[in-house]
């Protein structure tokens, strides 16, 4: 018999069925190897269902009572991996050097500098236009995602 024809199995292993129905399913499972095997899996899954942290319910109650805004709580401090910190430092240094380069660049009467809506961009030796990277407005998560992309 296919287990699809015994749709009460999840409720049976979780003890959610009324006693009469539960007895009928138990009798069926005793006689059906397919359903018995599936019930074993469901029982294992249900036995290990995760419980919420103990402080979750009181935290929600308190926040609602205090009329706290629904905003993301301050992120837990997560240690960045060494390579990410190094990459961030390199990017900051590169951005700083780039900015100093632009600030102190000689005036080429607009030959290499092209106006853009945001200000200006430089055409580098290989002809690629690039603007100063804007990272101030990036969130930690967005910056981390960017670093991950750069790191492949």
């Amino acid at each position: 018999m296919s287990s699809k024809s015994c749709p009460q199995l999840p409720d049976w292993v979780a003890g959610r069925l009324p006693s009469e129905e539960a007895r009928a399913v138990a009798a069926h499972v005793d006689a059906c190897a397919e359903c018995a095997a599936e019930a074993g899996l469901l029982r294992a899954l249900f036995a290990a269902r995760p419980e919420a942290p103990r402080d979750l319910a009181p935290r929600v109650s308190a926040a609602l009572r205090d009329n706290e805004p629904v905003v993301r709580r301050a992120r837990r401090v997560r240690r960045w991996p060494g390579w990410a910190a190094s990459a961030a430092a390199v990017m900051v240094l590169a951005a700083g050097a780039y900015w100093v380069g632009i600030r102190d660049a000689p005036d080429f009467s607009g030959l290499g500098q092209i106006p853009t809506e945001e200000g200006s961009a430089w055409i580098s030796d290989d002809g690629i236009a690039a603007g100063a990277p804007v990272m101030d407005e990036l969130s930690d998560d967005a910056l981390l995602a960017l670093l991950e992309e750069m790191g492949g």
Partner: protein
Amino acid sequence: MSQARRDDDETLLRGARAGDEGALDELIERHHGAAFRVALGILGNEADAADAGQEGLMRALRALSGFRGEASFRTWLLAIVANEARSVLRRTARRRETPLYADTPGPGRAADEEVALSAEAARARELLAKLPEKQRLAVQLRIDEGLSFREVGEIIRSSEGAARVNYYHGIRRLREWMEK
């Protein structure tokens, strides 16, 4: 979900809407575990799931006037929590998995049986986390929360039929993996 539980929720909802803090606390107590597990199923780690669960619960309970009773309260609330978790997932760009299983034995079983079940349960739960999201949530919502396939579909954004198919595909795959 049982009719008795649905009726109880409706009574509590009326109380919460009328400003009864005790009714609101009871709603939180009843549903925070499911909210956490739904967020965990989407996000894969407990810290983010607790945050998303809290935020989803707060959004839902502050918007009780928006609940029109077309779905059960539990389904409506869990759909909001799932949306919140998906939004966190988009912001953090990827799912961070941590092993998820209860390590405390349940009542009424011999110690040896408990140890065997605990190991099997831990493995089943770890494999569950490896299913595609819709299959994972369909299995989780059907077993952990006892939702019907129609209710599962409302949360995973699919039809009742697709929720059923996702559930059975997930179960079949888990059984194959468990037998290896």
